[in-house]
């Protein structure tokens, strides 16, 4: 898994990533989040283990540890720390983690153009827009209905999260060639999730504007 390259410092041929296995000098870091953490490409991750790895790597890579080293080492430390922090931010969040894997596998993710209403939500979205219009028009009777709809959407989010968790487990257990199919399902679930999450935000925004 770990990609091998020549050590810039001692010239060893199979230096391994992050640190040279022979002279222990910091190397040009890998930009791959999983490789960086030395983790298999799984969608289900143990968050406690990830946190410990993050702390351990922080101690080894942080620029504070390289103040009195060569310019090259300082550069690698800065580069590696930024990738470490970015990677930790993404991997510790299951949604961002899944999006990262999807993007790596060539699936378009978070595409702004993808504004089509998922067909199974058509009815709800229609209803919601009516209620929001009423509220904007100053009709406070729409408030209880909006509140109920908000609760329904939040419930849907919880449901999707449970589905996603199951899909993650299936993905991780599946053989390499069956994974793409599951990733496609995950992508569809994520799109639906993003859509609903935007709806909730929209309701919150309108309610906040109402209260202000």
């Amino acid at each position, binding site marked *: 898994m770990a990609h091998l390259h020549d050590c810039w410092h001692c010239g060893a041929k199979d230096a391994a990533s992050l640190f040279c296995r022979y002279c222990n000098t910091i190397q040009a870091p890998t930009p791959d989040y999983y490789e960086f953490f030395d983790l298999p490409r799984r969608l289900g991750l143990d968050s406690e283990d990830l946190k410990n790895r993050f*702390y351990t790597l*922080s*101690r080894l890579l*942080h*620029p*504070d*540890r390289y*103040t*009195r080293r060569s310019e090259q080492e300082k550069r690698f430390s*800065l580069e590696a*720390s*930024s*990738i470490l*922090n*970015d990677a*930790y*931010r993404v991997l510790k969040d299951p949604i961002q983690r899944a999006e990262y894997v999807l993007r790596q596998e060539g699936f378009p993710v978070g595409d702004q153009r993808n504004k089509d209403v998922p067909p199974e939500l058509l009815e709800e979205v229609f209803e919601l827009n009516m209620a929001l219009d009423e509220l904007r028009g100053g009709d406070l009777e729409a408030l209880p209905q909006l509140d109920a709809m908000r609760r329904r959407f939040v419930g849907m989010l919880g449901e999707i999260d449970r589905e996603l968790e199951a899909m993650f487990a299936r993905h991780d257990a599946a053989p390499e060639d069956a994974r793409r199919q599951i990733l496609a399902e995950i992508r569809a679930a994520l799109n639906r999730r993003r859509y609903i999450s935007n709806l909730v935000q929209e309701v919150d925004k309108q309610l906040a504007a109402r209260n202000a």
Partner: protein
Amino acid sequence: MSTFQIDFSSVQRRRIIGIDLGTTNSLAAFMDLTGPEIIPGPDGSRMVPSIVSLAADGSFVVGEAARRLLIDAPERTVYSVKRLMGRGREDVAEELKLFPFRIAEGSEQVIRLALGDRTFTPPEISAQILKELKRRAEQYLGEEITQAVITVPAYFNDAQRQATRDAGRIAGLEVLRLVNEPTAASLAYGLDKRKEGIVAVYDLGGGTFDISILRLHEGIFEVLATNGDTHLGGDDIDNRLLAIALEDIASEWGEDLSHNGEAVQTIRQAVIRAKEELSFQPATVIDIEYHGRRYQRELKRELFENLIRDIVDRTLGPCRQAMRDAGLEPEQIDEVVLVGGSTRIPMVRRAVEALFKAKPHAELNPDEVVALGAAVQAAILSGDVQDKLLLDVTPLSLGIETMGGVVSKLIHRNSTIPASATEVFTTSVDGQRNVLIHVVQGERELVKDCRSLARFDLKDIEPMPAGMARIEVRFLIDANGILNVTARDLRSGKEQSVEVKPSYGLTEEQVEAMIRESYEKAEEDLRERQVREARVEADNILAAVEKARMSDAWLELTEEERAAVDAAINELQVVYHSNDHHLIRDRIEKLDAATRRLAENLMNTAVRQALKGTKIE
């Protein structure tokens, strides 16, 4: 106080000092064998008031000595300059109503302050304070100091951080790290002894307010969220009291003193005294004597608290936001630490205790704790302390301007730094050679509501049809919280040149010019010091020879030897007032050589007498 692991093998390395460059006071600290210590001045004082005055001869007066000049020479003296660091003229319109800053013409991109008939940028003035701290440290530690860690408010934006780093460079200090003040304070408290836990640091200083929430884990200080207000602090309380006193005096004396710099400073110092007393007693008297007239007014703590309630309340919103961002409830905060002089106010303590539902720590002097923490961070950088590590965050989101003046966020606030984001840019017109990227900082959706940080000009793009160029731009916020931008042409793989045009602050060329100027000044200073030292040495040897001439030893010399000594004395006296220390030293050496026999005789006489002494016994 915590104990620190010291690696003795590194004692020989160059020392890095920690500096708290404050709005009201500045301090330097260093890591001693037992822990961080404040570096005192020659008079034993621990703080340098952040006041700078330009003397008539063009030299600067800094600190306590400059405080007097706030009243005697207000047009040549400036305080609270930190409020202007990294800011543009329109940002400080509000401040100008309350502070006697005299902004010079042509201050659009960088503010220039008039001191007497000269103008200086805020980093240049801050550099004078840093130089004073550097001098103190060199005198106290007996070694040259060239490297420092400087603290900044956690909520400082990129321009304010750059301005602070520029100040360090102008002062001849390599700023190895900018550390956020509340984070530094948590290091000084040695809170990691409890190993695990959530800590909130509430830092209300002279001009800025910060709140930081940290998780401690086996020596790692991980900031979860930070928030604040870079224009909220004790100064605001002073200004409130000042305005009331001015109004009161106007009605009592029938004279508006608000445009009289000397009177305003006199009254300001009196209300600050009253404010400070109210932290320890229930009532005080604002007592002002001004040119034979006297103003006295009793101020009870209750009324004082009513007057400042809204200022104290303004700190609570950022605290709640920081807790939300960290995903924490007040009950989950294990410890609260108070930092900054304004946290001595009982009302502030009550507000903090009520909000976090925990009794705040205030064992360490709130004025010193930040500098002490900076010294700990300095020891982390030097490798002397190896069991601690700070993981800080960027306080503000970073974004770029997109179509319609909308911000596209690239790095969100409270991201652990170093943090980065990569974007690919292209051209919109055939043969386009430049792409301009406007980078902003802030949480709002529209560019106009955010803070413009800089424009990055991708230059010399290979001409090609619109949309074909692919330039990858990497935005990286380093461990100082400062943005670095690099770009690469994805088609050729070559580095793409980027020109930075900061929206506020000094360009690299300006900073370099200031460093050069300061360096030339430093040479002048050094020369002067060497001349003075040579004269002191000359005084010593002349006095010694004069004394020797009165002794028997002088009479034991030959006629020629005595004439040679007299000639050498004369030679030295001739050059004594010259400005050439080499010349003075040369004559000192000659006199020294001429008096060698005299010295030997003196020694022999002394030995003989000593031997006689022993015989008697």
